[in-house]
């Protein structure tokens, strides 16, 4: 095939190949421009903060999902973990601290104490569920679609039972809103956390053996096994990290809203898959970059933001998201097709 760059004038840095390679970033930039044009408040402080926190929440879920998809699995339970994690953590903290005489819930559903323990338990429980997903997948050889779907239902039910259907309010809990609202050098702390997690994972995947383990487990499991890699371990690891990301996302979400809703996170698992696909992660495993996922998170979140500012009602948004997913996945597949 004749090189794309040769088709244009020599000396031009904008070639077809350049656009293909950097498609996601270009779309993101176009969106930013579009946003600025379509709405005067797009670049306003409040809107930016709104974008950043949504980016953190969805981006974390998407990164976790990407890791699972890279090992050729899928995690449908992350949305349910976002509710179950905090609810179970609070329920457990209540019991533990009740022993020492502290009552953490007053007035029916106001949480007033036990923040530290709750945070630790959220992270622990969500990771544990992820690991459980992974273990069932590899030991019982049940496809991850089924395992995590079942887990989704179980967790949703348990969330409802534990919370009795009531929301839990965190407004009287000291320090609860720190993660959701505080800023460092006027950048939201949660966004910094997101960037740290994202960059850390990108670096580990690129510069350590871990990356090879994960990409080979998903890319050709047989080859990985023949090379002596414990692919089961890495699958469980991926699920565990997905659970952990869901837990962190839950903390950010509840901190921002200063409450824990019984059904929070519902439907978010599909969004995390959508973002991963837009970002170039494939269902066949072993292909795609986390950087793509992060950019795709921004693309989706900003698109939703712009649509809200412009006044589009909710259902139009889902149509547009659907079209973006199909379009992005087609584009990725097309650019990988062999020339004939």
């Amino acid at each position, binding site marked *: 095939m004749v090189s794309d760059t040769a088709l244009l004038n020599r000396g031009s840095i904008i070639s077809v190949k350049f656009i293909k390679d950097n498609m996601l970033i270009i779309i993101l930039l176009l969106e930013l421009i579009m946003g600025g044009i379509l709405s005067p408040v797009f670049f306003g402080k409040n809107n930016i903060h709104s974008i950043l926190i949504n980016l953190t929440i969805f981006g974390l879920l998407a990164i976790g999902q990407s890791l699972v998809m890279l090992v050729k699995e899928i995690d449908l339970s992350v949305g349910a973990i976002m509710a179950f994690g905090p609810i179970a953590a609070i329920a457990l903290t209540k019991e533990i601290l009740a022993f020492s005489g502290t009552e953490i819930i007053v007035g029916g559903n106001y949480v007033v104490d036990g923040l530290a323990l709750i945070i630790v338990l959220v992270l622990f429980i969500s990771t544990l569920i992820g690991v459980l997903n992974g273990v069932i997948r590899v030991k019982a050889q049940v496809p991850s679609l089924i395992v995590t779907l079942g887990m989704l239902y179980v967790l949703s039910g348990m969330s409802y039972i534990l919370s009795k259907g009531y929301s839990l309010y965190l407004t009287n809990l000291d320090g609860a809103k720190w993660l959701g609202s505080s800023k460092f050098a006027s950048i939201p702390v949660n966004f910094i956390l997101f960037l740290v997690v994202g960059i850390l994972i990108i670096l580990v995947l690129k510069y350590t053996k871990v990356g*090879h383990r994960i990409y080979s487990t998903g890319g050709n499991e047989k*080859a990985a096994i*023949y090379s002596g890699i414990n692919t089961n371990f890495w699958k469980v690891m991926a699920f565990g990290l997905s659970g952990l990301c869901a837990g962190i996302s839950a903390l950010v979400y509840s901190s921002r809203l200063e409450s824990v809703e019984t059904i929070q996170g519902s439907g978010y698992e599909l969004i995390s898959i959508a973002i991963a696909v837009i970002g170039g992660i494939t269902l066949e495993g072993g292909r795609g970059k986390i950087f793509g996922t992060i950019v795709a998170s921004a693309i989706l979140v900003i698109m939703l933001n712009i649509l809200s500012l412009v006044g589009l009602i909710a259902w139009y948004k889902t149509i547009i998201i659907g079209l973006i997913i199909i379009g992005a996945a087609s584009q990725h597949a097309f650019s990988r097709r062999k020339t004939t």
Partner: protein
Amino acid sequence: MQEPLLFLKNIHKEFPGVKALKGVDFTLEKGKIVSLVGTNGAGKSTLSSIIAGIYPPNQGEIFIEGKNVTISDPKVAEQLGIGIVHQEPTLVPNMTVVENIFLNKEITRSGFVLDINKMKQESEKVLEFLGFQIDVDKKVEELTLVEKEVVVIAKAMLLKPRILILDEVTAPLNKVEVDHLFKIIKDLKANGMGIIFIGHKLQEIIEISDSIMVFRDGKNVGELIPTEKLSEKEVIALMLGVILNEDLEAGEKAPESEQREEVLKLVSLSKLGLYEDINFTLHKGEIVGFAGLKGSGITELFQSLQGIITFDDGEMYVKGKRVKFKNPKDGIESGIGMVTNDRQKEGLALTLDVKENITVSSLKYLLNKFRLIETKLLKHNAEKYVQALSIKTPSINQFVQNLSGGNQQKIVIAKWLLKNLDIILVDEPTRGVDVKAKNEIYKLLINEKNNGKSLLVASPEIRELLTICDKILIVISGRIVSTVHRNTKEFNEEDILNIIHSAHHN
């Protein structure tokens, strides 16, 4: 006396339903090449898998340099100095050559961070030693089949094993590449490496081995030493337990075929970068062979004739009618079918069984009056071809992925024969197929020819082409440089090889 490098004693291995090894003894000395031969299912792959730690034996002992060892998994095998190159390349497509070579053996700086430069250097060193130039940053999925094969060998060579198992590594290679590989193998042998070579091409095996171990039915039935006098016939006899009649009546009919009607004519067919100015005519009841080196463009030419890809320039006539196929369906409708060189990826539906695979392309002829599949008819047709082609399978309901390479290949051929097409293109008819099945496939193809079908056969094995073809076209870098007819004095392996070598060096 020195202990042998590797000694296996009384090895038994059983799988559900089949006893693969029934008390096998095996010895490998340092600096020697032992070949394992036998028909598929005879036990040679099972034995090598046990040595490589893929699964343990049910019974028996293994000694390496006199020491009793247990090879519990591939990593232990590696540590014991055993390297294996598998039949199907076990590479991760989306990762680069260097990443694949160093998979699970990565070099790190201070334990954590990958030392990519060092790994690149070492990879390039190994590839250079093997005599191949491959860009180590290229993703494996972008490599040719031969290059993938080389990378898998490089992978096995990385830990400088003292025992190297090569399982069917020459299958995708042509004569020049095989010679190159054999030179490397001989160098390794001279350095004391013990090599176990598994293959089907007896000519090669006789050439390279110090001794040949013949397997039949799970047992070691004899050891043959390749001397001047050892013939392929003798090896085959031991493999099958019978004497095989190699005479196939391909020859006598040949000169007449050119008088018969034209079924396919190509005029100046070209495709940029692949082949150029291809001219030839195929007659009814004729088998035309295509011989050439890697990169000759023959596979792509076949793909163009079937419609998998399109040609750029030139004219194609099927039975006098001018055609240009945009997809394989067009090709099939014009009566052309193709047995590709990659049955696993392109020829078989691996999740389906024998009867489904044989009939999958002919379903519209197997419908009842309600336009639903007539199961009895489907089974009848499947049985018919299983019988006719001697396909070894417990039943027509057996999943094709459980069958041996030779039987799988026959199923792909059966699928096409069932369609009763006039022209069949066959790319590497006996790749990864054992001797007995090879002969059966040759008889099959000649039978079709005698029934008035026309065939184009491409193969890296010139002997194969000499056995079945009426004429052989020699293709170098996409151009036909010569045509050799049966019953002329150039119709032999040496002369054809000379033509290829001299054309290649120009």
